[in-house]
């Protein structure tokens, strides 16, 4: 089967990103002693699971041309509600986890209802809930309450290994596979792209646009709750500031992975590579004894670079087309 030029280009983008990730890894491995060890690579995996989950959930949203700025705040709210349910309501971690997932889905549902029901722009709705969720988390804990002393059986989820791999990886990779199948091998994924290219077009084609959008935002809330549970298990504590700024990392990973911020184009494996690129950069800089701020700054710069890189060919094409289409100078007849 011959591939269309666009598929070819996509392939090139993800392949280029794979090369970047490989170069990063090899470079850090050569420069520092401990970077290449299996322990450290498991460490990178452990630390990137939460942002990876958020980025996975963000991919369908950005594919539909939307955005969700509230996932980091929702993670914080879910983390402290999980702690509250476990410590103050006396639920077992498993029961508290199920309730937390329901709360996350409800939080995503709030976004979804406002966006689809009232046709408000996702940007401003999720900016409002970004403030609301974080504010609720601060109000519930009064800014100071911290939940700790979780049972070892729960911390196993975030800090131990199961069958040789970090436990949370056994949650992360099946989730990634499920999202990949959803986006790339079902009609749902196809409808996300159609909505991203043109919501009206998708509507006229008979797609249930509102139901699909409802689905992606609820999914994002659900995944944010899952990430909150894993975050709590990894750190062994839940605080109101959990996940501050994670929405930025998630969006960066998605855009770095080749998903167009205008919607319609993108892939889940690109997002996974984007997450890997950011996680390796963060970990490698720590091994080079650079301060944490350097990694944050480079992530921001990386996002800008990826954005400009993604539109540069289009701009160049547009400019050339503009030059070609310029009408010839009028010739004065003698």
């Amino acid at each position, binding site marked *: 089967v011959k591939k269309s030029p666009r598929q070819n280009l996509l392939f090139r983008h993800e392949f280029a990103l794979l090369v970047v990730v490989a170069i990063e890894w090899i470079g850090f491995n050569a420069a520092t002693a401990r970077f290449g060890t299996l322990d450290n690579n498991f460490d990178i995996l452990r630390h990137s699971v939460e942002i990876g989950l958020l980025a996975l959930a963000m991919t369908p949203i950005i594919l539909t041309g939307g955005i969700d700025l509230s996932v980091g705040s929702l993670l914080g709210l879910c983390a402290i509600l999980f702690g509250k349910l476990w410590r103050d309501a006396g639920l077992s971690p498993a029961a508290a986890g199920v309730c937390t997932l329901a709360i996350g889905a409800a939080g995503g549902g709030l976004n979804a209802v406002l966006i689809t029901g009232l046709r408000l*722009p996702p940007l401003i709705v999720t900016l409002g809930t970004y403030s609301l969720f974080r504010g609720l988390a601060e109000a519930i804990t009064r800014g100071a309450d911290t939940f700790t002393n979780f049972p070892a059986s729960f911390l196993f989820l975030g800090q131990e290994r199961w069958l040789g791999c970090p436990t949370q990886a056994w949650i992360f990779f099946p989730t990634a596979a499920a999202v990949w199948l959803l986006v790339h091998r079902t009609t749902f994924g196809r409808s996300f792209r159609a909505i991203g290219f043109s919501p009206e077009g998708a509507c006229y084609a008979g797609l249930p646009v509102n139901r699909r959008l409802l689905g992606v935002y609820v999914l994002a809330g659900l995944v944010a709750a899952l990430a909150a549970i894993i975050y709590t298990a990894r750190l062994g504590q839940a605080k109101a500031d959990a996940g501050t700024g994670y929405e930025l990392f998630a969006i960066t990973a998605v855009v770095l992975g080749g998903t167009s911020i205008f919607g319609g184009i993108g892939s889940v494996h690109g997002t996974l590579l984007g997450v890997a690129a950011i996680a390796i950069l963060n970990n490698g800089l720590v091994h080079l004894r650079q301060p944490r*701020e350097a990694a944050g*700054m480079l992530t921001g710069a990386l996002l*800008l670079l990826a*954005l400009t890189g993604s539109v540069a060919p289009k701009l160049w094409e547009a400019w050339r087309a503009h030059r070609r289409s310029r009408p010839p100078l009028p010739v004065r007849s003698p």
Partner: protein
Amino acid sequence: MSRYFRELSVGAALLLVLATLAIIAPGFYQPQPLLSLATREAPTLVVACGMALVIICRQIDISVGSQFAVCSVCAGLLAAQNWPTALVAVAAIAIGALLGAINGALVAGMRLPSIVVTLATMVTWREALRWQRQGAFVNLPDRVQWFGLSQSTGQWLLVAVALVVLGTLGLALRGLAAGRFLYAVGSDAEAARLAGIRPRQVTFQSFVALGALTGLAAMMNVAQSPQVDPKSGTGLELKAIAAVVVGGVAISGGRGTLWGVLVGLLLLACVAPALTHLHIEAYWEKAIQGGIILLAVVADGIRSRKGRM
């Protein structure tokens, strides 16, 4: 009436809050605390005015908090080098305009979505500043605080500067061609282009104006304390956007007034002192502000829905 429905309804909400406070907590109305409150909110008002320009132009800038911090620290460092205060203010405004121009060039020149561009610049400037300063405060010479005037004169001066900025920009938006261009581009960029306006140039200029106003606001903030906190301005973008949205500026561009922004900011600014006086814990402030933003956009959504039917 219907044209200024939004401004009037927010004004009514503000009056309701003030009346409630007058009955339940008359202690709120004391001249000195009110002046302090106005002084604290003056820089936010200046930033919110700039934000209104950008949002009317159908863009958004969430990096203003980081720009504010960069301008504050630069102004502090220059003042510590014994630059005269007026020159420091000019430098702060110039640095702000430069940072705004970077955003503007990326948004208008490269046609990138402003939310992602400013998300990236927000984190880049903030982390670069943290890396550079490592959380160290900048100590200012005495003559900078309140511009070397007495405290109450300085406070009145800052409030006056903010109101002059608001008034000038408000009149310019109404009366000058440049102001009408913003509404035209925000309503429909293509139609504006066909009418002979250059939409990308207007967008770029709105970002530069916001940057310059952020620099001015940073200077107004520096003049209020003997030290500059490198973390200053955290969350400023949300405050400014909240004031603008609550004040009735449509996030989809092309609609809104600066008077509405003033009323919106006053309403949000009253939340924190009102909470204290009503004996509600201050931790609810952020949640209530988020709730007010959502309420405002929901009201917009319902109204525009009615308008369509």
